[in-house]
């Protein structure tokens, strides 16, 4: 409602839960009149005409809470967040500043209303009574001392429970069974008998209902935030002076983090630009360089996020990484403001084994990788991972991050590779002997040298077998085919747009310099012939 005030005049329901099990979490008055109530399923209300639906948004709720906090903090420094929608203020000593208590309460409600929040306020001698009254009565309520029980008496017992929890549901059910609907009913129960039945929790609730409870306020603490900010007097255009300023900010950030024995794994740089430009909304996780988001909707702001594989705390390294990153992705306009935020994490333990081989330092490795990526492109750095597919040569790039060395694992890997070698040998034995037989010699054909890129050829067929190849690009690779084995047929990814199907032939060609063995491939979808490689 705060974000979309036009919804106030319509029927609105807020949904919670995952599809298809969404249920109504809250409704406004108009919706309630249309017969919609919390707990109904989405399916049930689908037919309800004119009903606006919104999904519950926790970020928006916490934003509203934060706005409310901002609002009340201007009235009192001692503020307690008593729930996601409830705030308690200590107004002791405020009277000389803001006037009598009811006036302050009205002022708070007015201020909140200006922020788009509908609120109720109550003033009472103790925090809990104030909370109950604010929950139960709309507008502003002032409860004079000594009149708590009387005034609270007419409220329903539900106001005792701010957040729905299992325990409160259980107690509410008991009250409902007992026919205790108002705080007055609860207040009237005999203490001892109640204590025998509901224990101290019951007594506590009864005291709340009587307004006969006192406690100290628990004020909130400001959140831990590591953020540095510079507003420039004149716009910056060159990277060098920017680097200088970034260096200063980073040093301050690192010093603050260090003071709290923290490090960081994520740095966010936000540059406000003089005349912003817009780019497409790209937020692709690019594992190769650790850059999470490319400029996203940079109308005025230019943002970069640097994610590191390990927690670090070295301002020079950070600076170098930021420089490299900005070189690859320049902001594109003069800079007027710089904001740098670090996500605090616990630092890594840096002790390595005494007798272990040294691994590259993560800081240096990260720098090197960033440098390489700057030259060859972000998606071309990393380690190869072979894909589990029949498609020949299927691979993808992975971010290069050596695993921390552990002696046990080292031994295990050694054993495993030994086993694999043995196993491969025995698997291929019959195959090799067969190939040996086919080639008519004892020489093993073991290696295939792949041509990159492959070599296009023209092929003449005879009796369903390739008989002659012509290669305009390379005369050495053409001639009569003396012998051909195949076709070896494979196809796959038929459910994708880029499905593939191919026939392979192993051929011996009589070239000008002698007999050569090639792997000849026919792309059955593209209808093209090419040589994929040569056998040693």
């Amino acid at each position, binding site marked *: 409602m705060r974000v979309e005030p036009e919804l106030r005049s319509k029927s609105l329901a807020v949904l919670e839960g995952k599809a298809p099990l969404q249920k109504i979490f809250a409704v406004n008055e108009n919706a309630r009149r249309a017969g919609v109530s919390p707990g109904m399923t989405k399916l049930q209300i689908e037919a309800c005409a004119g009903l606006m639906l919104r999904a519950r948004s926790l970020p928006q709720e916490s934003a509203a809470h934060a706005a409310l906090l901002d609002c009340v903090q201007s009235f009192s420094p001692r503020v307690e967040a008593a729930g996601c929608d409830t705030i308690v203020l200590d107004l002791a000593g405020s009277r000389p500043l803001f006037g009598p208590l009811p006036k302050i309460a009205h002022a708070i409600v007015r201020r909140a209303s200006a922020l788009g929040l509908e609120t109720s306020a109550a003033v009472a001698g103790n925090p809990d009574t104030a909370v109950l009254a604010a929950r139960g009565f709309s507008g502003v309520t002032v409860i004079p001392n000594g009149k708590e029980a009387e005034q609270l008496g007419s409220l329903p017992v539900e106001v005792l429970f701010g957040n729905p929890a299992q325990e409160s549901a259980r107690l509410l059910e008991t009250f409902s*069974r007992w026919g205790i609907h108002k705080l007055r009913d609860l207040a009237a129960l005999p203490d001892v*008998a109640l204590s025998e039945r509901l224990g101290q929790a019951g007594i506590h609730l009864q005291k709340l209902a009587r307004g006969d409870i006192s406690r100290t306020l628990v004020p909130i603490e400001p959140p831990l935030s590591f953020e540095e900010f510079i507003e420039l007097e004149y716009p910056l255009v060159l990277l060098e002076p920017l680097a200088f300023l970034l260096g200063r900010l980073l040093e301050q950030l690192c010093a603050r983090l260090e003071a709290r024995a923290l490090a960081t794994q994520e740095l966010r740089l936000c540059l406000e630009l003089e005349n912003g430009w817009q780019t497409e909304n790209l937020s692709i996780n690019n594992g190769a360089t650790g850059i999470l988001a490319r400029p996203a909707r940079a109308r005025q702001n230019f943002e970069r996020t640097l994610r590191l594989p390990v927690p670090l705390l070295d301002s020079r390294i950070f600076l170098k990484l930021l420089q490299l990153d900005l070189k690859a992705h320049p902001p594109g306009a003069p800079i007027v403001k710089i904001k740098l935020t670090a996500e605090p994490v616990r630092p890594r333990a840096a002790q390595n084994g005494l007798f272990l081989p040294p691994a590259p330092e993560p800081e240096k490795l990260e720098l090197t990788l960033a440098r390489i990526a700057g030259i060859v492109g972000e998606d071309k750095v990393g380690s190869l991972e072979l894909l589990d597919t029949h498609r020949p040569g299927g691979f993808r790039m992975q971010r290069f991050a050596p695993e921390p060395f552990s002696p046990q694992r080292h031994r295990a890997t050694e054993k495993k590779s030994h086993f694999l070698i043995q196993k491969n040998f025995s698997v291929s034995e019959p195959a090799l002997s067969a190939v040996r037989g*086919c080639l008519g010699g004892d020489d093993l054909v073991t290696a295939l040298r792949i041509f990159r890129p492959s070599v296009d050829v023209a092929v003449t067929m005879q009796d369903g077998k390739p008989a002659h190849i012509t290669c305009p690009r390379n005369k050495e690779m053409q001639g009569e085919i003396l012998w051909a084995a195949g076709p*070896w*047929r494979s196809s796959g990814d038929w459910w*994708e747009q880029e499905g593939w199907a191919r026939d392979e032939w192993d051929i011996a060609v009589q070239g000008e310099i002698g007999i050569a063995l090639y792997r000849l491939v026919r792309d059955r979808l593209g209808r093209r012939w090419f040589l994929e490689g040569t056998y040693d």
Partner: protein
Amino acid sequence: MYIELHSRSAFSFLEGASLPENLIAACANLDMPAMALLDRDGVYGSPRFHMAAKKARIKAHIGAEVTCEYFSPPRYRGAERITDYKASVSMRLRGEFRLPLLVSSRLGYQNLCRLITKMKLRSAKGEGAVREEELLEHAAGLICLTGDHDGPLTHALAYGGMEEARVCVEQLADIFGRENVYVELQRHFHREQEARNHAAIEMARSLQLPLLATNGISYATARERELCDVFTAIRHHRTLATAGRLLARNSERYLKSPQEMQALFADLPEAIANTVELSSRLAFTFKDLGYEFPKYPVSEGETMMSFLRERTREGFQQRYGRSSSELQERARRQIERELKLIEKLDLAGYFLIVWDLVHFCRRENILVQGRGSAANSAVCYSLGITAVDAVSMELLFERFLSEERGEWPDIDLDLPSGDQRERVIQYLYTRYGERGAAMTANVITYRSRMAAREMGKALGFDPETLDKVSAAVSTWEYRDDNDTFDHRFRDAGLDWKHPRLRKYFELCIAVQDLPRHLGQHSGGMVICQGQLDSIVPLEPASMPGRVVVQWDKEDCADLGIIKVDLLGLGMMAVLEDSLQLIHDHHGEEVDLAHLPPDDPTVYSTLQKADTIGMFQVESRAQMSCLPRLQPKCFYDIVVQVAIIRPGPIVGQMVNPYLQRRMGREPVHHLHPSLEPVLKRTLGVPLFQEQLLRIAMVAANFTGGEAEELRRAMGFKRSQARMKDIEARLRTGMEKNGISRDAQEQIILSITSFALYGFPESHAASFALIAYASAYLKCHYLAAFTAALLNNQPMGFYRPATIVKDAQRHGLKVLPIDVMRSEWQCTLEQSAVSTQQSVSSTALRLGLRYARGLREDAGQAIVQQRALAPFTSIRDLVHRVPELRKDELNTLAEIGALNEISSRNIAGHASTKLHRRDALWQVERAVRYSGPLLDELSEPDVNSPLRPMDPEERLVADFRGTGMTVGPHPMAYHRQRMEAMGIHKASDLSHIPDGQRLRIGGCIICRQRPGTAKGFVFLSIEDETGVANAIVMPDLFQKNRLLLSSAQFLMVEGILQNQDNVISVKAERVMPLSITRAETSSHDFY
């Protein structure tokens, strides 16, 4: 010439992508004379393969790929040939492989079934492997191939090289005999496979074994490889994208033509020639199955037939002894005719076995009644198998048994659901042995929803998209034209032009009707003379100790295996319980077989449609038909039971029949030749038999063809069959000169029966139960209602409605009381009988109706109370520790603890508690206050809480029991209702037709049947009865939320009273604020 001898169908469950019928069709297309089906670890698809092949005149060879444990090192060969190394290799290989086995003789088939049974019965579903010694034991009559990529040869080559492979093949030759082992070669254009082939050829040459070319078929055509890949992904719980090399490398495992195969194996012509040679050796087919129904043991000097005659004669005396001599004579003639046919078809044993089963039930006091076509037989009636007198009802015996059909008769037995039915099944097992009886399977096939879900998952849709698309797909009618699905996709917010969604749609269609896995049929049992495991492999069922065969009941019927259906029927249990209650409480013995046949109370109740709780005639649709049909005799009930079915409704037969019955429309027949067939039902076909006879008379169908029609009608896989039959019907009718209009009418009748229709005999059996339930309700209301409540959930109405209906009929219903209630509802002698009360018997609700109360806790209450009555709530809590706090709270809240009287501290006056007092005490009693103070706990005294008001009691009753035994919620508001101009339900019969009025009450049932074009039917209950309202589609659209969720409604509209069928055609609906109690309705959408 080439014959494919290694193929899998979709019955290899997720390893093959074509139905057996499609394999045969492809085989016929390629002019191949024979084919073998080798499904994984079973012969699941073989009956369908056999039947399709028989039709296409192709020879169907049977076999299976059997999972085997790897062989242990050969012990019996010369030690000099086995080096330690090889032995150790063998020892290491504890894996499994698939051994393709072909059946060459009946003995071979029996061996195959036993092998698979042994393996299946000792392991979990989908697991298990045959052991070497079992192969040795059951090798006779089987021919073994060396297998493809998961066969023994590949396995041995991969792990032990050439030497190990040689050892393995020699072992196979030792087990099966050298002449029965073929070295299998397949060519799918793989390098590794070709290397393997070279090794195999070399070995075959050196061991002098024949080579055999096969193509290891997994699908009929290359296109189906896609589906096979999807199945692979599903089997491994992956998506297609993550399945990687588990998927097939190419699409070569389709059925190739002999020319293609010859070209592939041009270098090895003997491998092709051997397929023909091997095919000629495979003599076994399913014609030669060797099934025998168990013989019934008779004493010496007697034959089964003479024994049957004797039992029939005895039964005849009982059944017809008191009948008129004319009926006796007709019955005698009919029985003689039937017995002659039974003798001729050698079926005496079968009848005796069913008789024995029924006899067992009688002995054990288990209610039993035969249904289905058996009710057409006078012999079955005499033997007590059925309760319908086929002679006096002139039922058609040929529908049950005909010489021409050559099929075993079908006898279905209705039994009380639950434990009693279990006892009968157990009896069959003990009588025929573990391997002599088994349940039939139920093949679970891909239907729209499961197809949509699994295909989407395999394509890697995220859960949200999956929900969207499956919601869009599940409503598709697959045979419909394509122009609707883009619509549905758009509705779901999806772009169906997206290639992946198109692929998804294709896959969903392709997978329809393919088997997914094997389930268990609810009541079908097969029994066998010898060992059933030599007829069909057996598998463990979900219940320990039970076995299930690999075929479903259609397959069993196709192969001539007799099955007995033991069906659990809730109403049978109600009848049985009622009889017991009547016996216990009234000391009367009611014999259902000898109920007064024309009880006037029963018929007048039926005519008034006062039928809540009665079997088959209680639904809203039945109730709206009863006053028009005005049943006056038993046959009218038979018609009544059969007429309100989707078949007659869609076939537009209901109205013409009722109009003719009321004399408002002349009786005429579609064609004069059909008069004898349709005379009894006034020219309107209502029963399945009539439609079969119409097909025979009008379209010259033979008995066999009519039988085919019958099976197509009640058959899941029948779309194509029905189309085919429709064409034949038209040709036949054209020949007989039947007019186009009449043809259309007949076709409509027959095709709508495919939806659902009753055979007359079946309707008659049901009508008997309906009559019995009506009789018991009319004369023993308390016992019947108690039994009905004790067998919930069943029937059309909620317990709350049943209770209110019984109360309106004068039954006193007492609330749950821990001092008196048993677990089940019981009968009590009521101290105060109401004015209307027929007797002073009252019904006491059982503890089972206290929501959330577990049975063991309930039984513990009953046990403890039997020892001594509870003196206080604390006493109850202490003596029944099983009770949890929530259960105690529920009991207190519904007033079940009110009668626990207690003495106060002074030890004198006793206090009667109200519900809140009890709740107050429960809260105290469940809190353990420690050893010191526990003894000092306070007695049950009045609490500071105020008693519940009527509304609160209502809310508590509905929350705690789902009903109230107090006044109907509407009763509290009658004055207000009257002020609003709302009429009582009981008033409506006195108000003239066409008057605008208002009714209101609790919605007990909402229906929006598929046959009613969007109309909604509401049943609205108030304290005087149930009124009906009809809501037009546009009114429903406007008030959808209200109509589908409101508990109490006011309906304003025009009263329609046609032939005493009363309803209100709604024009306006409004919610009524009556109570916060959560009443519930039975909704059908």
